């Protein structure tokens, strides 16, 4: 039961930490525009060369065109295949791609295990032994699971090697960077060994998920103590889930904000609109910058200061 409790606890930490990160982003004030082109929600013809709506004469009189299709056409290969790195840093891609894709596959397997366990527990008629759905799910878990474990192990080792061997990376690496890589490698390796040693069809993972969903009361809960690698895999996976949102590795989901809230945030400030209201609120904030020319005293607002002249600087 201790393993299940750890997993529940780590899941709760993940939800709270990720939630806090996301909430923090959502509650920040509207910032000035700092987009950078190409912006991928422009219509395909413009996105192809990095053009914007500001290329149009009197653009403010026209309806803005946006293309979700162009955006998805860019983001899906960017997220799944790490296309940016393929284009700009090919040497690193050879280890970064298996690492990331291995993690994606693990997340996918987690989802499939969850689905399988749910269907087993809540007795779906279409999910019986030998049914087409069960065969499909088992097959997917097997392929994605083994694929993910192999890719993840290779990628983690490759990233670790590059960070140790290449001064370009080593000079910037901190103990935390090595710890993070070793932590992830520990999960991949232990899961790989557990699978290879006595669990090739990943039945252990299915049973553990069943146990997680049923609070340990499923008919055949997995007992991690049976295998040390299995136990290590479960503990490291649980702890990783809790740890990732506390670190820079949260870029896995925070990338959404980096792209949509900054890099591609080209929404113009329309008179009377949402952004104008937010800007007015910002202009009421009272800065305390200390340089003399700013003239901030904690009482003047940004609006006051922007409409004033800089204070004469005494030499």
């Amino acid at each position, binding site marked *: 039961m201790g393993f299940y409790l750890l997993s529940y606890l780590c899941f709760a930490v993940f939800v709270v930490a990720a939630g806090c990160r996301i909430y923090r982003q959502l509650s920040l004030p509207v910032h000035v525009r700092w*987009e950078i082109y190409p912006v991928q929600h422009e219509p395909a013809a413009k996105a192809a060369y*990095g053009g914007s709506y*500001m*290329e149009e004469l009197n653009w403010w009189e026209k309806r803005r065109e946006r293309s979700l299709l162009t955006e998805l056409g860019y983001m899906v290969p960017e997220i799944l295949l790490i296309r940016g790195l393929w284009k700009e840093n090919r040497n690193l891609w050879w280890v970064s791609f298996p690492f990331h894709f291995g993690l994606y596959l693990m997340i996918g397997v987690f989802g499939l295990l969850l689905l399988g366990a749910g269907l087993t527990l809540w007795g779906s008629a279409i999910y019986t032994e030998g049914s087409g759905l069960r065969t499909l799910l088992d097959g997917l878990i097997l392929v994605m699971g083994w694929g993910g474990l192999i890719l993840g192990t290779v990628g983690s080792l490759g990233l670790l090697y590059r960070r140790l061997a290449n001064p370009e990376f080593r*000079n910037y690496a901190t103990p*935390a960077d090595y710890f993070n890589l070793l932590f992830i490698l520990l999960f991949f390796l232990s899961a790989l060994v557990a699978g290879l040693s006595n669990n090739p069809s990943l039945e252990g993972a299915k049973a553990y998920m069943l146990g997680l969903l049923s609070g340990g009361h499923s008919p055949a809960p997995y007992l991690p103590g049976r295998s040390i690698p299995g136990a290590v895999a479960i503990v490291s996976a649980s702890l990783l889930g809790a740890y990732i949102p506390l670190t*820079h590795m949260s870029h896995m989901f*925070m990338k959404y904000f980096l792209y949509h809230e900054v890099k591609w945030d080209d929404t113009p400030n329309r008179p009377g609109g949402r952004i104008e209201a937010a*800007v007015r609120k910002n202009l009421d904030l009272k800065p305390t*910058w200390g340089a003399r020319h700013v003239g901030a005293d904690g009482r003047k607002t940004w609006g006051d200061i922007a409409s004033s002249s800089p204070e004469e600087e005494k030499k």
Partner: protein
Amino acid sequence: MMKSLNPSDLAGTSDCLCRIEPGELAPLPPPYDDFNQATIPPLKPEKIKNIEASLDDTVAIGIPKPASKEEEEELIRRFLAGLQKLFEKENNWTFLQPLMLSMEHCAKCQTCSNACPVYEMSGHKDIYRPNFRAEVLRRIYRKYVKPGGKLTARFTGDINLNWTVIARLAELAYRCTLCRRCATVCPIGVDNGLITHEIRKLFSQEMGIAPKEIHDKGTVQHLKVGSTTGMTPPAAKDSMAFIQEEMEEITGYKVEVPWDVEGADILLLHNAGEMLAWPENVGAFAIIFQAAGISWTMSSEAMGYDAVNYGLWYDDVQFSRVAVRHADIARRLKVKKILIGECGHAHKALTVIADRLLTGELNIPRESALVTLEEIVLKGKIRFDPGRNNFPVTLHDPCNVVRAMGIVEPQRRILRKIAPQFREMTPHGVDNYCCGGGSGFAIMSGYNFADWRALVSSRKKFLQILQAFKDEPREAPKYVCAPCSNCKGAIRDIFAYYHAEERSSLYYGGLVELIVNAMADMKKPIIRFGDKPSWTATA
């Protein structure tokens, strides 16, 4: 060869952390290979004995060394106070979210380094990596500002903080042109260029430290006198009267510049530097608008004739003040829109960044002149004879117009129509390289900074230009079209430094000059190559 450096080495005691030795700069092809052993001329010891000059071979700011231990401690305290303020919405609502995201999510993959022309051209000097200064700031922030930072620093990346680190960081913030090429290639979306921008802000807004060319002689003079050039309103009108006469003399076309016309469709804002350094650019705009029958005006009010906003590079407060004044002048003139002339940073400043600063009546539509010019040229409002521009032309993409605004094609569609020998640089458009004069560098020349700029930050652009014309005969005049005042300034300086006019017949200018040069009704060409009129130069 110096050893490779990591961010914590910024606290080292060396009297020069990074030096470019002969032969380390990226090589230039013949006939410029005699510059390949060049180094940055050393600074005279007496000139730098009282300022911080231990970062590299040059000095951009010239920060005085603290006179006592107490003064040093006070400066460190102020630096940390400013760093804290960067993460407070009251002080930094303008960039808080972008800054937080870029501070927290870098994976240190160094993809940004490969994209940085300064790093590449310097011979891959570590301190010029986009991530170097960003990582220094991250480490200082984590250790000295975040709760418990001193306990976790050994785990998350340590750095010692002293006056040398702070002063070197300030200098290092002026070794990046803010071209943001690094940000476009980051797979995560981290923007190390933005972190450089924020470091500059910290120093300016909290400690009053900034290069004099962009603060004292820049925004302060702009707000006080009306122009960063020092030009007062009467002087601006005098300059324009002179330009009108010059235009008639040069081209045979009589042009009138409308001043302070209330209710005009367009208020045209030029970089006032154009009036002094490139008057033909300002004159060419007037000729085109008059010939096309555009309703436009210039403003003779202080600041109304100078579109620049140096605050964009280093100080949000100064930025806001300038932007508000520009918008207010347009509001009082009751124009329908503000048009930004050929000035890249003014484009981004007033059109994009100020967009979330100007509210109510100040939120007057702003447009790039390149868009308006495209309408004029392509819609047949003026007759052209492209044969008059029958010389090799390439286009420089100002980062602020192209990468920061996505205005890529209008200028190209114009050139395809009026310049039969137009060819692109490689790469171009949003992948372009900075001229090396971005973020204020074009106007900064204190100490030996102009040498550093010519040898390092502008080097990639020079290589691109040479590459674009590599198949042309040396003596054939070639034109680099740079629709941006700062870029033109940087390119002018590159050409002078490398004797490019003598060695390769390289010339530069704006887009409007090419447009006027191709106008069928012009009696004489506006573009000259040395002492030769451009219409005959290639005949």
